[in-house]
């Protein structure tokens, strides 16, 4: 089910830097043989038989079990702490408080503002105030109960807008505004003056839990040579190492981090492993024994990072014909108690910066002004979750587009068609979209496959009794590849052996997305061998080059490029050798299907393995190293103008729903999601990303919310925190379009997060189209839908 779209006829406008980078990647124009095919995932047979080991499956014989004593208060001073009774309990090896720590008492993916153990103050319910290591988990639990802590509760902040008040209690010494950024383009006042219709709306989204099925677990294992080995499921082994070393007070090279296959991550296992690894490491260092910390499900919900809640105020102006004239927005991005992944990393990293850049949507708007605030509160902290700021703002701008269309009496598709980005469009940051812009194509393909016009005309009552109405919804989206920081480089190494087999060294982690299948595919394509000839060395900071974290939809693209560059170094050895063997100039040689052959006379060929053996014997280079950094991002700190991200993935989703207007219940009937992915390296794995992302967006729309009262999580278990089941998810038809990315491996761009993003507003818009019930505060559960219909004066009367 692939539609190919050719962008060749349009003129691309690459910058000089982009041109130079693209030149480095360009391959001879030959058909791909391995990349672009749906080879099976390599670890599937191990997974369906239960043989694949996850973190919790490793034997913990000889290990101590670590536990964290958590604060019951959202904001309080620690007056005293007495651990004597806990220390005396038989089977307890160590009880640590803040004063026992050897190194830096702080960790964090970006700013180390979260104490490993709180000394004087706690900032959320779940903050760690003491650590225990014991011979069994039961003893560790008992020891926690024996620790006596005296708190002096402080007033807490539970709404990010309250955090900005002059007299608000300070959660951190530097104040509650962690970051504040601005984006200004044109003149919004002039834009509003040109508008025929101006709407002002506020949209609000809650904390979301990743709900990966595998609870977090970490092992810290002291090695005989003094090195601290950390093993566990994690998305960012290098960030973990960068934190554990200073906490232990040792250089980075004294910590070794090995990733274990993850049972789901979705951004959540970017920073929770930092937390657990630092804590397990200090216990292991104090006792000299291996320590394992495994979280229970409720602890995962209470302690680990969440998707940032946001309050988003929008004011948008539009002309009668649907042309947008001005967009003004304010984002109150709630960071919670600690900085985690939230704060700005120049020039364009950070959750509120990303939200700010994406907030006006994938539309040409001449006048834009957005203010974004990242604010501390006494809630759990916000981190990355499949879209990092983008899902939230898409919920706002995509609802606003529908509200504007309704006001103008035009269709939801018409208003999007009028304003959608095309090649050469200028974004709200002033960036000219120089290449690979397939947004309009996704709208056309999606509408075509979904039969939008027919379905729109057929919406209305489903039953005689007028209790259920059918409706349709659309949403568009855009998402960056990579993370917009200056240091987003990615390294790979390729080791060719004399029998033609290859070891591929990459620090990109596997969490179910398929990286361990797709990355060898790219390596095999470049060398002209088969994917099974490439064995991937699992991420281990002692072995693999720095690759950065597995986040930001960057893996296939950035690591793919690094692999291509690494593979080319050994390919040069092969081609030089084959040239001598065949007496054919290297320019005429090519490789595929384990053969190296003369393009002009394909019968003249050599076995890949024979050439590898000869190259090795001749002392040729057998190890290639590749490093890829995307074009340097820019974003002015005062105006928010620049080119923050080098390429974007685009998407349009359409959905049909039936709303019971008497109960507020929603049933999803059909779903089409179209994407411009640049190039599908493994179409089947890509479809899996699409279907899973849509299902997660459905949860955001209809049911998911971490409910907090005075900072206390009310629904920490999966009984209270609902995620979609098999009964909730409709048929999803993915449509894959390929508008080549000149800066990606074989034209690919990122796809991991994009499918999650337009899904939520598409569903919310369909509910409103069906029932008049517009839910601006998520989730749109039956009760909110019911009241939204009432507020609108009832469902459409036809």
């Amino acid at each position: 089910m692939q539609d190919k779209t050719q962008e060749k006829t349009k003129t691309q406008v690459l910058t000089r830097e982009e041109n130079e980078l693209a030149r480095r990647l360009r391959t001879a124009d030959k058909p791909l043989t391995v990349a672009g095919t749906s080879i099976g995932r390599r670890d599937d047979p191990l997974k369906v038989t239960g043989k694949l080991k996850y973190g919790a499956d490793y034997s913990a014989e000889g290990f101590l079990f670590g536990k964290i004593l958590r604060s019951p208060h959202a904001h309080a001073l620690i007056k005293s702490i007495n651990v004597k009774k806990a220390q005396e309990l038989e089977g307890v090896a160590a009880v640590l408080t803040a004063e026992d720590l050897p190194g830096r008492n702080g960790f964090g993916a970006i700013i180390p503002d979260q104490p490993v153990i709180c000394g004087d103050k706690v900032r959320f319910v779940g903050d760690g105030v003491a650590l225990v290591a014991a011979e069994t988990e039961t003893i560790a639990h008992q020891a926690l109960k024996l620790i006596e802590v005296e708190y002096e509760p402080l007033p807490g902040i539970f709404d990010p807008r309250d955090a900005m008040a002059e007299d608000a209690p300070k959660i951190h010494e530097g104040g509650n505004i962690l970051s504040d950024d601005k984006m200004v383009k044109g003149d919004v006042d002039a834009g509003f003056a040109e508008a025929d219709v101006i709407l002002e709306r506020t949209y609000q989204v809650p904390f979301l839990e990743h709900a990966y099925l595998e609870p977090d677990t970490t092992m810290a294992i002291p090695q005989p040579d003094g090195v601290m080995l950390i093993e566990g499921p994690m998305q960012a082994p290098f960030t973990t190492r960068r934190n554990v070393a200073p906490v232990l007070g040792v250089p980075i090279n004294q910590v070794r981090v090995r990733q274990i296959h993850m049972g789901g991550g979705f951004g959540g296992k970017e920073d929770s492993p930092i937390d657990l690894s630092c804590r397990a490491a200090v216990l292991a260092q104090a006792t000299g024994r291996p320590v394992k910390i495994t979280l229970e499900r409720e602890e995962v919900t209470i302690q680990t990072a969440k998707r940032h809640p946001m309050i988003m105020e929008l004011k948008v102006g539009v002309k009668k014909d649907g042309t947008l004239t001005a967009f003004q927005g304010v984002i109150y991005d709630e960071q919670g108690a600690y900085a985690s992944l939230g704060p700005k990393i120049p020039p364009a990293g950070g959750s509120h910066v990303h939200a700010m850049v994406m907030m006006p949507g994938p539309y040409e708007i001449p006048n834009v002004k957005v203010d974004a605030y990242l604010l501390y509160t006494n809630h759990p902290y916000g981190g990355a979750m499949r879209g990092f700021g983008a899902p939230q703002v898409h919920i706002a701008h995509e609802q606003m587009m529908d509200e504007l269309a309704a006001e103008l009496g035009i269709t939801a598709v018409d208003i999007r068609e009028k304003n959608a980005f095309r090649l050469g469009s200028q974004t709200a940051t002033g960036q000219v979209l120089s290449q690979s812009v397939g947004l309009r194509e996704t709208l056309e393909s999606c509408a075509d496959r979904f039969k939008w016009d027919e379905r729109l005309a057929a919406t209305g009552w489903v039953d005689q009794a007028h209790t259920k109405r059918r409706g349709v919804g659309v949403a568009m989206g855009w998402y960056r590849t990579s993370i917009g920081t200056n240091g987003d480089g990615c390294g790979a190494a390729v080791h060719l052996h004399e029998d033609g087999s290859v070891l591929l060294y990459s620090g990109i982690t596997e969490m179910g997305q398929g990286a361990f299948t797709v990355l060898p595919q790219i390596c095999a394509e470049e060398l002209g061998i088969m994917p099974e000839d490439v064995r991937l060395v699992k991420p281990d900071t002692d072995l693999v080059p720095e690759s950065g974290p597995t986040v930001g939809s960057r893996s296939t693209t950035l690591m793919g490029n690094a692999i291509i560059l690494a593979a080319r170094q050994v390919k040069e050895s092969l081609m030089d050798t084959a040239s001598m063997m065949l007496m054919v100039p290297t320019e005429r040689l090519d490789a595929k299907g384990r053969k190296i052959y003369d393009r002009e006379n394909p019968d003249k060929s050599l076995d890949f393995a024979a050439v590898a053996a000869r190259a090795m014997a001749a002392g040729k280079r057998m190890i290639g190293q590749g490093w890829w950094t995307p074009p340097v991002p820019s974003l002015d700190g005062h105006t928010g103008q620049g080119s923050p991200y080098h390429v974007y993935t685009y998407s349009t989703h359409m959905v049909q729903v039936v709303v019971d207007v008497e109960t507020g219940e929603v049933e999803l009937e059909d779903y089409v999601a179209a994407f411009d992915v640049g190039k599908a390296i493994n179409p089947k794995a890509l479809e899996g990303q699409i279907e899973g992302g849509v299902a997660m967006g459905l949860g955001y729309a209809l049911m998911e919310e971490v409910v907090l009262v005075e900072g206390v999580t009310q629904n920490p278990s999966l009984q209270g925190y609902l995620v979609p089941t098999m009964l909730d998810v409709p048929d999803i038809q993915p449509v894959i379009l390929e508008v080549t990315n000149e800066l990606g491996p074989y034209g690919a761009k990122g796809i991991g997060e994009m499918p999650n993003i337009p899904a939520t507003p598409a569903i919310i818009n369909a509910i409103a189209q069906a029932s008049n019930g517009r839910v601006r505060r998520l989730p749109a559960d039956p009760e909110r839908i019911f009241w939204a219909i009432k507020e609108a004066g009832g469902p459409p009367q036809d």
Partner: protein
Amino acid sequence: MAKRTIELIVNGDRYELAVDPWRTLANVLREDLRLTGTKVGCAQGDCGACTVLLDGRSISSCLTLAVEAHQREVTTIEGLAPSPDELHPIQEAFVQHGAVQCGYCTPGMVLAAKHLLDNNPAPSEAEIRAGLSGNLCRCTGYNKIVDAIGAAAKKISDTGKEA
């Protein structure tokens, strides 16, 4: 409380074990028998990752005490394939249909599907969705799992092999 001696028949093998009476079947399978293919996602019966078959019926092993399984037959994911070199048709279908991503829910899904097909060899799509609605998956969006189970049902009935 004193330990109880129990007899478990797991994947056809008989084990005599002394266990604390409060320990769950999931716990004993994973820790005492090192059958770690059974996953624990919530330990409260909400997610279905720990699904095993007890006398052929699918249960949450995190909600079942090991002593309750005394002298009963337990099938875990390790016991499903007919031989070490082969896969059960359900396992094979999961691989072929791309029904696996992170894989943490997969053993439970496969065993819940086995229970379903044993009782309903030709389920409709709606019956598959209802039958496995107690097993959560956060990665796949479920549709490829539904496809896989439908295909496995067809293959089992076509080849006449017992599911």
